[in-house]
């Protein structure tokens, strides 16, 4: 080795530096290839920074990973499908191997989708993995979003990432709808038919926009290739761009962690990327892919051959979109007809426009704005890296549950016909019930959730003050029974007391120092009222003094009433 390198050194020109010798035996093994790359990219510095990066471990952190992997699986299987799919609405007679449709006139899009399902070996599997992965993508990113919301992970410094996530979620819906419409079967074509009606409902420009999008009268031959371009090029590019920004920001911020012993707002406790996190997260990709393959092998999804080609005249009962568009479809079923009216001789169909066009952007705008609204109310401008337990922020948790309730009411409303048939009930009654529930149910669940959160917090307090129930019953000499409570250790206790419970802002008078009602003072009053709404129902964490008092209380009882002291003390405690 030494002779070889000194021999080569002779060949160097002045000013050239010879490659540095590997630092250790193991580095030598990684060898020449890595050295070649590093000399041209300097990647080793960045790599060692990345490889020792720490990720906290919790099952709920894997939800975003599921979404990420589902998206990658969609991209991968999508490339496969694009090799056989023909994005054309041109009408041809079907010549494939599926006998029931032989000779029927259909679009090339539908015919080639039948080809993928019946004539391409393994094509059906790839198509089903693609569809299941798309559904999994939307499900997992929604649940990931719930996790981030309920734990307050959107707080400073992560507001931008919350907004990016919101956009990803909305684009995922549109991407899904575009892909769902491509096979041009009867069901998806009916969906497009409705979509054309949605666009027409836009005031002033609706009819023109519809003609531009469809390249003339519905259905036309333009929409399938256009949706294809949107589905395979435009939206995936935007999704990947936003997703990359999302991940980079996670790196920059370092991952949040749950409160626990040793975990503070100034550190991250977890496993390094190499090797533990690589093995777990990398292995998890294969688990998600494997699970999707298994489902796709065993459960048929979107059997387009059973629906037939699109034709504007026939329709099937129980027409429904994929689940993630259900809430918008449900809104359309609930909005009453009287919302359509005439204004200066023009027709305004709010019964369609509100549910089909406005609902999605409005819903996502409110979602995206939430971190900023909450920050305005709380006035909290600190960085937060420790996650909230949902029970410890009752109002936020209740707001989230109320929003999900409203969403679910709309989603179930999209199945009002199925519910009516399955439960043998009147569809009219069901629809009216959903109309009422849309307004009433969120209020109810808000209230119930807040009460549950407060109860759970009180339970936590009890546990800290009086210990956990050990399950051991003790009989005293004079025949009384009591259950022994075990005091929590420092680590377990910290999980229950390591949080803040701020008091609401004091209500100002709404007047400035001179007793005059000014704009600023009114704003302060408004803010204080919101602060009261947000923080008024609260339970404070146990303080060391309270714990000492609880201990003292128990001992005190024991001294004063020698017989049956323990039982009495416990009884007292549970009444507190």
């Amino acid at each position, binding site marked *: 080795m030494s002779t070889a390198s000194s021999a080569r050194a002779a060949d160097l020109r002045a000013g050239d530096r010879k490659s540095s010798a590997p630092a250790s035996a193991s580095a030598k093994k990684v060898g020449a290839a890595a050295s070649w790359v590093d000399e041209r990219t300097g990647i080793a510095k960045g790599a060692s920074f990345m490889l020792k990066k720490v990720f906290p471990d919790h099952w709920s952190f894997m939800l975003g990973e599921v979404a990420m992997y589902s998206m990658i699986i969609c991209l991968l299987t999508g490339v496969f499908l694009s090799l056989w799919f023909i994005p054309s609405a041109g009408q041809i007679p079907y010549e494939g191997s599926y006998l029931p449709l032989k000779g029927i006139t259909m679009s090339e899009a539908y015919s080639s989708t039948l080809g993928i399902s019946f004539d391409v070996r393994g094509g059906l*599997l790839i198509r089903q993995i693609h569809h299941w992965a798309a559904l999994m993508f939307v499900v997992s990113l929604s649940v990931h979003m719930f996790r981030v919301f309920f734990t307050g992970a959107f707080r400073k410094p992560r507001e931008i990432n919350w907004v990016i996530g919101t956009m990803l979620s909305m684009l995922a819906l549109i991407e899904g709808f575009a892909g769902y419409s491509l096979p041009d079967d009867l069901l998806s074509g009916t969906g497009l038919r409705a979509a054309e009606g949605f666009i027409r409902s836009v005031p002033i420009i609706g009819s023109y926009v519809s003609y531009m999008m469809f390249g003339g009268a519905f259905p036309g031959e333009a929409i399938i290739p256009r949706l294809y371009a949107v589905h395979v090029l435009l939206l995936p590019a935007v999704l990947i761009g936003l997703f990359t920004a999302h991940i980079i920001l996670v790196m920059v911020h370092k991952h949040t962690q749950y409160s626990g012993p040793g975990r503070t707002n100034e550190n991250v406790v977890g496993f390094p990327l190499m090797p533990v996190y690589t093995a777990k997260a990398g292995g998890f990709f294969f688990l998600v892919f494997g699970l999707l393959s298994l489902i796709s092998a065993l459960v048929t999804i979107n059997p387009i051959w059973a629906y037939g080609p699109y034709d504007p005249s026939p329709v099937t009962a129980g027409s429904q979109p994929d689940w993630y568009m259900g809430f918008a479809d449900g809104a359309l079923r609930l909005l009453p007809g009287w919302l359509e009216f005439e204004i200066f001789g023009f027709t305004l169909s709010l019964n369609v426009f509100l549910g089909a066009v406005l609902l999605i952007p409005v819903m996502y705008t409110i979602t995206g704005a939430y971190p900023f609204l909450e920050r305005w109310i709380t006035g909290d401008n600190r960085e937060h890296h420790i996650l909230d337990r949902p029970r410890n922020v009752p109002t936020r948790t209740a707001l989230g549950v109320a929003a999900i309730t409203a969403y679910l009411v709309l989603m179930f409303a999209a199945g009002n016909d199925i519910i009516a048939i399955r439960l043998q009930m009147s569809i009219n009654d069901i629809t009216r019930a959903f109309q009422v529930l849309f307004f009433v149910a969120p209020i109810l669940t808000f209230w119930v959730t807040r009460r549950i959160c407060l109860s759970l917090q009180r339970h936590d307090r009890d546990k800290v003050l009086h210990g956990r129930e050990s399950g051991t019953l003790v009989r005293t000499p004079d025949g009384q029974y009591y259950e022994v409570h075990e005091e929590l250790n420092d680590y377990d206790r910290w999980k229950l007391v390591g949080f803040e419970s701020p008091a609401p802002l004091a209500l100002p008078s709404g007047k400035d120092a001179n007793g005059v009602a000014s704009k600023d003072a009114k704003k302060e009053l408004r803010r204080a009222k919101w602060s009261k709404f947000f923080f008024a129902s609260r339970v404070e964490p146990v303080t060391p003094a309270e714990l000492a008092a609880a201990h003292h209380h128990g001992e005190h009882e024991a001294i004063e009433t020698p017989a049956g002291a323990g039982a009495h003390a416990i009884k007292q405690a549970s009444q507190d």
Partner: protein
Amino acid sequence: MSDPRLPATFENPGLPPHVHRAADTDPRAAKRAERQVAGLFTLSILSTIGFIVSYFAVKNDTEAFIPFIGTTNLLNVLLGVFLALALLGIGFGAVHWAKTLMPDEEVVEERHPIRSDDESRAKAVGLLEAGAESAQLNRRPLLKATAGTALGLFALPLGVQLAGSLGNPTKALDELKSTIWDVKDGKPIRLVRDVERTPIKAADVSIGAVFHVLPETIKESHHVLEDKAKAAVLLMRLHPNDFAADDLGKKAKSWGYEGIVAYSKICTHVGCPVGLYEQQTHHLLCPCHQSTFDVTRDCEVIFGPAKRPLPQLKITVDAEGYLVAPQGFAEPVGPSYWERKK
């Protein structure tokens, strides 16, 4: 009672002591874990082989009975299950490896405030200002104004090209109003059965019957789907006494022929075909959003999100007894739009 020596809140007790796993201390447990992981990887290898064998050995159209699932395509099941096992073997293997044999002692990394320090901020602002200054941005307002305008406008050509060429919207209002039922030469248009495209004799329509109908002009259409999307009609025969006694019922009856009435099949809500006819109640139901129309009262909306009744097609019979439409629809069919009344 509170002790002044106690802190106001609890203090973070720090990381709990580490508990070792079986494989950390017992070499036999570690060996067992190694075998389990290797077993999972082997499962993956075998399944990959299984996938390739099935791909070549099983026919495309072989059906097989799978318990709990029913009769299904065998190739799809075999490929999917083998692919799943090949992937799950790697996944479970890697995770099990990480959980049993890789270090499980947590590592602590410090966080630093996200914000840059004041010095870096000042430097960045200074660089920006110096750059703007050296480019003479503020000293030359003419450059600022023209550059700004040019940048603001440069996307316009692309936008115009896109919007201008997507589709010609000038025909939109005329086309939304017209259907191929519109009579051109004064000759009434025959009603034909959808699919078969044969004309319908009034005598063939018994009470309670429903026909899916298109205009005979569909045979000459060059845009079959587009024309069908507006011209689809539903034809029903009611007993003349079934119509409501009010004005609506009378109008419906007078535009029909001996209780036979024809209505646009395109829902006035968002355009789905109103395909479900309830013979007993004479209600038409749209399967998409459940708008319900009452045929006895000129297809007025009696439930659901639609506002307007389905447009009626006036019909009569010609000399040979076939049903014909002497005129097109009196109003635009299908979903509402801004200029509908214009």
